[in-house]
């Protein structure tokens, strides 16, 4: 149980994914030293400090992640480092004590998650990332909830990418296997046709062949001008396709560089990529 006195574990979903009432107390700060390579980035979570709940300990310490237009940025790091927390912070789901989030030059630190969706951000959380009682097709439709145009073709594209989903389009997503669910989750986010896509471990539990497909697709998506910020534990494959890589350790930036650069770094390989 978190420190929240109003909450009860039983029957509750992860209460930390969202912050429905919008914001807590935020002090907007302009860059603190990491500005050099993030200055013109499309999405920046700049010098973020904060944690869960109103009074929980800080998980992030002056942490910065950013991605340029049409590029892929990958966050790696040990379990519990705060990768997911950084993603949630960027999406406005927890109270930042310090730092700011900017999208395309605009400060969006004060926006609710829904408002960020409207601004063109898409997110696939690490867990609880599908509507289990709804059919696969309805899951995808919900991904396109804010779209007013016809999304039939996008859906076809998703089905082409993950053929198994086409077969199971009318099955409740909760009945799918672990890897199939993951495909639904990514499919849902793709339906949004966002400007920037945040993916928290999209390949966890998917088979090698699907993982390759997925990475391929991510590259294609990025090439259409959409920025991708993702957390990955299949770090070597991910860093290979990454334009930029961040290594987070204990809520702070430990290493930053190009994907190739990090892959080449002996220390990074050994401590975080499994040798």
């Amino acid at each position, binding site marked *: 149980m978190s420190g929240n006195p109003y909450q009860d574990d039983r029957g509750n979903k992860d209460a930390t994914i969202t912050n429905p009432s919008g914001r807590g107390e935020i002090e907007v700060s302009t860059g603190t030293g990491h500005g050099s390579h993030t200055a013109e980035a499309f999405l920046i979570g700049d010098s973020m400090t904060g944690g869960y709940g109103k009074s929980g300990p800080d998980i992030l310490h002056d942490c910065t992640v950013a991605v340029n237009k049409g590029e892929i940025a990958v966050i790696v790091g040990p379990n519990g480092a705060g990768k997911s927390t950084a993603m949630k912070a960027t999406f406005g789901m927890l109270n930042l004590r310090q730092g700011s989030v900017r999208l395309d030059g605009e400060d969006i630190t004060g926006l609710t998650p829904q408002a960020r969706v409207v601004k063109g951000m898409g997110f696939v959380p690490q867990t609880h990332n599908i509507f289990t009682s709804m059919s696969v097709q309805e899951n995808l439709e919900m991904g396109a909830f804010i779209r007013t145009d016809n999304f039939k073709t996008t859906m076809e594209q998703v089905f082409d990418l993950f053929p198994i989903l086409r077969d199971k389009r009318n099955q409740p997503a909760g009945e799918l296997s672990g890897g199939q669910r993951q495909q639904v989750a990514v499919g849902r986010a793709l339906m949004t046709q966002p400007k920037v896509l945040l993916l928290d471990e999209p390949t966890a539990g998917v088979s090698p062949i699907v993982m390759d497909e997925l990475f*391929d697709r991510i590259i294609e998506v990025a090439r259409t001008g959409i920025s991708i910020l993702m957390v990955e534990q299949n770090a070597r494959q991910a860093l*290979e396709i990454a334009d930029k890589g961040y290594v987070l350790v204990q809520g702070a930036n430990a290493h930053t560089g190009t994907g190739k650069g990090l892959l080449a770094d002996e220390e990074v390989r050994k401590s975080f990529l499994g040798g």
Partner: protein
Amino acid sequence: MIEVHELHRHFGGFRAVDGASLKIAPGSITGLIGPNGAGKSTLFNVIAGVLPPTSGRVVMDGEDITGLPPHELFHKGLLRTFQIAHEFGSMTCRENLMMVPAGQSGEQLWNTWFGRKRIADEERALRAKADEVLEFLTISHIADLRAGEVSGGQKKLLELGRTMMVDAKIVFLDEVGAGVNRTLLYTIADAIKQLNEERGYTFVVIEHDMEFIGRICDPVICMAEGKVLAEGTLDEIKANEQVIEAYLGTGLKNKDKVGA
């Protein structure tokens, strides 16, 4: 050790497990791979007594264990971990371990009122044992944290730790690796190997990370569409055309275009 005969598990008309037969040799670490939806987790769930089979038999050491409830299987030495960690979230990590051993006298109500002394003694021993396991898994520092609030990888280690609190015969691990940092994962691999060698546990491991499989597993079984597709050493499997087509694939197509 475990023999699965012609096992079927259908959901409505859908055959998730469709006549799978396999043998697990005692003392082995068997890898179970296969595309998403191949029926691996379903197979596990049927063996572990969570789902009743549609038809077929599971035999352990010559005894038919088909459809026995999980808690009875536990007492026969068959343990399992979950694909998604099933920790006891409101209890501390140490308590998560201490609750495992069977036959604790403190689980009998009568003793909680009139056998306090015996309980205290047992608890001391249990605590020592739990600390030992935590030490072994290099997570002593989280002993007193609530299990619900530790990170994903630590939960996975805790799952593994629970199997170490008793003398298991065979342990089923469902994707210990998904979401776990690779460096840590290979530490876990070493732990599994160690348990296998030192304590003689038999393991069956579902995993999508080929490197992990390669480090510890022999033999490897590949499932597809509810059936066993291929069986052999990892190298044999990797060379199998069907397995490549259904499961392994041939790598990234767009790789060369990155950064172009």
